[in-house]
Each structure stands twice: as C-alpha cells, then as structure tokens.
C-alpha cells in the first residue's frame, strides 16, 4: 500500500471506531437509565 492510502484508511478507521465508541457510550447511558426506571 502507498503511504497516502495507509494514512487515508487509518483516518477512515479512526472515524468509524470513534463513532462506535460514542454509540456505546450513548447505549450504556440509555440502558442504565432504563434499568434505573
């Protein structure tokens, strides 16, 4: 892979993972609140 391709793929992966983690945080908060009634 070319260095620019590596950089681009890394950046895309980072955005995807960042959104997944943010989604998990959101889910945890919703579940915890639902459990607490």
């Amino acid at each position: 892979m070319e260095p620019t391709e590596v950089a681009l793929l890394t950046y895309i992966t980072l955005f995807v993972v960042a959104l997944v983690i943010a989604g998990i945080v959101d889910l945890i908060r919703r579940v915890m609140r639902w459990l607490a009634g």
Partner: protein
Amino acid sequence: MSTELLITYSFIDFIHKVLGITTLPPLNVVARFILAVIGAVLTYLGYKRVLEPLIMIPMGIGMISANLAYIVTVGNPHVNINFTNMSNLFVYWLQPFYNFMFSNGLIACLVFFGIGVMTDITFLMARPYLSFILAAFAELGTIVTLPIAINLGFTPRQAAAIALIGGADGPIVLYSSLRLAPKLFVPITVVGYLYLSILYIFQKGLDELTIPSRFMGIYMDPTKLPKISPKEKLVFSIVVTALLSLLFPQASPLIVSFFLGVIIKEAGIRRYIRMLDEVILSLSTFILALTLGTLTTVDVIFDPIVLKILVLGIIALTLSSIGGSIGGLIMYYLSGGKINPLLGPAAVSCVPTTAKISHKLAVKHNPRNYLIVFAMGPNIAGVITTAIIASIYLALFT
C-alpha cells in the same frame, strides 16, 4: 627522552584521564557545551514555569551533566543507549530504569496509570458523539505527517513514530517510538515533550488564526450537560477496555493502564489513587525526564535527521490543531450555531492544556462562558483516538 618531556606527557595523560572530554575532537566538545547550555536554558525555563517544570528541570540537568561528563572508558557515565547489552546494568546508574522501564514501554504505562486516575470522563460521556468526532478531526496531523515523513526519506516505521507527535500525547509518543523506531526514540520523544511544553504558546495563536473571533464567544450552558453516575462511568470503562483491547491489541497496555486508573478513581479506592497519582506518576515522570535528559547527548542529537524531526513535529501538531478547528467549525454549522468551534482544537489531546486554552479564549470573548466542562470531553477523547492510531501504526509497521 628528557625529563621535562616525560613530565609533560605524564601531565597530559593525567589530564586526559581526569578530564575525559579533553580526549574528544574540538568540534564534539563545542557541540557538548552547546547542548549543556541548552540544558541550562530548559532548566531555567522550567524553573520560571515557561516550560513544564516536572519534565524540563530533570531533563535539563540530565542534559548538562551527560554532555559534560565524559569518561574515556565508558563514555556517558549515566546511561548507555544500547539496552540489549545486560552488562551495562553494572556500569551505568540509570541503566536499570532504561533497560527495564523504557525498552518495554513500562514507563509510558506507569504515566498512563497516573493520567487515568486524574481523569474525569464525565464530560466525555456527557457529549460522546461530539467529543469523539472532534477528537478524530484533531488527529489530522498524526495522519498527514505519515506520508510527508516517508517522502522525506524516513522508513514507514520511523515516519509513523514521528507522525504520532501530532497526537500531542507524550507517553504515547514515547511508547510508539520505542517500538517503531528505537534508534530515533530519544530525539522523537525529546522533540515531542519539548513541543508539548510550549504547545500553549502557539496553540492560542493557531486558534485565533483558524477560528473567526465572532464564533469564539458562543455561549454553551454548562447546566444543560447531562449528569453521569459513577456506575455509568464504571460500565463505560469496562466495556471500552474490552472493546479496544479486542480491536487494538498493540495499544492494549496503554489502554489498560489508562482505564484501570479511571476505574480506580471512580471506585474511590483512596489508597490506590494516592499511590498512582502521588507516587507512581511523580516517580515515573521524574525518571522519564531525567533518563531522557541524560540520553540527549551529542552523538544522539547532533544528527541532520533531528532537524527533520523538529520540522515534522511542528507540522504534525499544527495540522492536528487545524484539523480540530475544521472539526469545530463543521460542528458549529451542523448544530445551527449552538456549538462553540473552540471545542475543536481542545481535542488535541494534550490534557488539559488545549482544553484550558479554548476555555480562556471563550471567556475572553464572552465572560459568561465556562467552556472547560465541554472542552474536557474532546480533550480526553483525544487520548483514546491517539492510542487507536498508535495501535494501527504498530500493527501495520511492526
């Protein structure tokens, strides 16, 4: 041979043995004095709090001594950069720290324990999407510097280690450079820590250049932040540790260290909190700075490659800051003007310096603002995104 000549030779031999530096070429001696002066300046700037004193005072003193103290038989009397030679342990007093704490990245993990125990993830969890998206934007330098460095002649491993300076996280720079570019880890880490120490000087100027001043005063109401319970923080830390360890095993030592610190804080285990904060963090920072200083010698630093690292380091940090500003402006427009774009550069993960700079600028433009509570979210998310990139680079290039 005449008696006078014999006495002269004996005297010169005596001088060479006592003052080892006199056996070196004149140019090397001059370079050593220059580095010693730089060490003195760093110590003074640390003392005056212009630079980070916790790092700069031990590092500066280490630099002064390591460059002036030269023993003919062993060279630098403090530490030898070759950590594979175990006999060095019996010669150099700092060698045990170097061999057993640097070669495996332990020192960076110990610092991360301390950072974790000092970090409050409330603000990160209160606005997770905003925090993580901005943090991803603020990694622009870490990404773009990689191909730039490769084009400048660095190997992909060295380029990746240098690019990580853009993540603005000292322990991650140290950890990654030790694994990716062990021969360049001293200049990369010293340049990284030096820039992080002066980040607050140029970050403020960059923010003012990239974000229109009319946006800086946008008021964000801190009372509208949702409350996060300690139980939510605990569950988040457990889930994210598991997920990131699974996805990014190369960075798992850093991830575990950081989140273990966070969990200990949330669990309120005072004995461990005190130990990690006051003992482990302080001791590891001190050892890190002192050992780095004693390694910053002529043979390691006076290399044309270091000039390139200096340039690439500033490019990486500048691009990350610009990336953060772009992210902040995008979020400002997407939110219909409700989000202060200064949150973007706060995502450059130099905890808490960049968040404080954004806060101060926001207060300067609108004294009602209390942006720090919002800025800490992207700031801490930046630590996680930098660890993710480090892991990807480590997986790709080792």
